[in-house]
């Protein structure tokens, strides 16, 4: 079979088209900034960006003019304040208007649970007494055929492209994740195309020594990209810590569009790839964030 291994530049240009609905996943963990930066560099436009937490990654893409719509459930800078890029787009239409489709965390997660299970809808025990259904016509209800009670529903979400960062995969795309796994598995099974980005490419024997650790099987993966430190300033359990200094600094960087533009020029347009970004970051930051070694107790798969 044709190899799935490729570069980030090739994967983004092949799979992400203007107007695509994309989901770069990772719930506060494994957030693939390397993919977002390449999308910004390739000046993709009119994207619908889906994520439970837009985080800095979508704040940057929105400020860079890549997005016409965002589907989300919590739009803050985790632990550190506001997403000014996203707010400027919604409050002041800068750099352009941004359509908003909003859920609670469980509501948006349920859209992906349904998408992965090939269900047209998912029932969610939520939204009673809240104003959210009044501003989102996609939140509807069904009557339970057993209790006769009404229960809220959300429709399936099937993104055109899912980009999932992980600790390791083999060249077939069998992908293993540990630490916080978020909604990555459902996202991969819900999406029409899947790009996996990893810190380490490993021999299939390593993956197959622990099959329960595999979150995403190669059969649903279209491309595999090796991109060490691909999540900075986010983190990868067992590899490097979250750059909290940067998350806090983002408040000042993003508070006005001009300083945010300067960041885009210097750190995204100003570098050609993630490896150049890492070089620019410098060895001090890289070693400051490097993870200590805390290994698991092995288990036996013999019979």
């Amino acid at each position, binding site marked *: 079979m044709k190899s799935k291994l490729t570069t980030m530049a090739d994967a983004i240009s092949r799979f992400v088209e203007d107007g695509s609905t994309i989901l770069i996943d990772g719930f506060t963990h494994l957030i693939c900034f390397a993919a977002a930066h390449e999308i910004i560099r390739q000046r993709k436009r009119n994207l619908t960006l889906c994520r439970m937490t837009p985080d800095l990654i979508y704040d940057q893409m929105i400020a860079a003019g890549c997005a016409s719509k965002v589907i989300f*459930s919590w*739009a803050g800078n985790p632990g550190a304040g506001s997403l000014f890029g996203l707010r400027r787009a919604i409050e002041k239409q800068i750099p352009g208007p941004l359509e908003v489709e909003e859920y609670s965390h469980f509501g948006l*997660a349920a859209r992906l649970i349904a998408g992965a299970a090939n269900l047209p809808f998912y029932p969610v025990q939520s939204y009673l007494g809240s104003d959210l259904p009044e501003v989102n016509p996609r939140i509807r209800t069904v009557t339970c055929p057993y209790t006769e009670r009404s229960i809220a529903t959300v429709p399936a979400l099937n993104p055109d492209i899912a980009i999932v960062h992980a600790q390791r995969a083999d060249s077939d795309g069998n992908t293993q994740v540990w630490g916080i796994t978020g909604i990555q598995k459902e996202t991969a099974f819900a999406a029409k195309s899947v790009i996996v980005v990893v810190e380490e490419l490993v021999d299939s024997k390593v993956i197959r020594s622990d099959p329960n650790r595999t979150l995403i099987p190669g059969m649903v993966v279209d491309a595999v990209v090796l991109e060490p430190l691909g999540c900075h300033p986010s983190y990868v359990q067992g590899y490097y810590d*979250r750059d909290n200094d940067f*998350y806090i600094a983002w408040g000042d960087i993003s508070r006005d569009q001009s300083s945010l533009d300067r960041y885009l020029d210097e750190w995204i347009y100003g570098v050609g790839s993630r490896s150049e970004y890492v070089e620019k970051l410098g060895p001090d930051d890289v070693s400051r964030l490097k993870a200590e070694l805390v290994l698991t107790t092995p288990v036996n798969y013999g019979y």
Partner: protein
Amino acid sequence: MAASYSTSELMVVRAARELLDGEVVFVGIGLPNLACNLARHTHAPNLTLIYESGVVGSEPERLPLSIGDPCLVKGAAAVCSISDVFQHYLVNEKIDVGFLGAAQMDRYGNINTTVIGSYENPIVRLPGSGGACEMAIHAKRVVVIATQNLKTFPETVDFITSPGQNSKGRSRLEWGLPGGGPAMLITNLGVFKFDSESGEVILTEIHPGVERSDVVNTIGWNLRVAGDITETPEPTVDELRIIREELDPDHLYI
């Protein structure tokens, strides 16, 4: 004699004392995280900490700066998916206590974290629900922590993100909400409970050195005050030591 302490420290200690040993708590970042870990280090060693990110039985070695901080995972009892943490834990009624913040809260504990102004053309776009709407619906009880001013406690909120004791004229029973909803409000000025009949918030404790008028004048409605109102108990030296030396040595939240 009590040591000197900040208002944040008083709020953290007061929240911690609301948590019972053996309970399961859905933890948030900031003061709630400090309160839960303080309780775990003092009177509630068997408190189970669950973070929205899917970490169960977490015992963080350092102060987590986000809901998904890697320090929450290392040494935890379990990590599960977002799908499972909401379905198997929160919606499945395994959560005893949840914490919520509020940009706005009304007299019934209806909370707005979505927009200031109109939804279509907001003056301020707030982060939105996250898991707050589900926590307000499913947790057995909810503790609200907020900074008190007229903007925070208006007569009516601009948007109901998370339902309180009475939403849009209907009680939780009438809505069929399974959880208990807001049970306590802790602000920088006092401590409040919710009336079991009317569902209205009632001032029950005033922080040391705070005037009752300060509390009443920063609430946007005619605030009900308990007959047996007391002074908020002060932190002990030991509680302060744990907060300052073990939980938040860099004083990020206190």
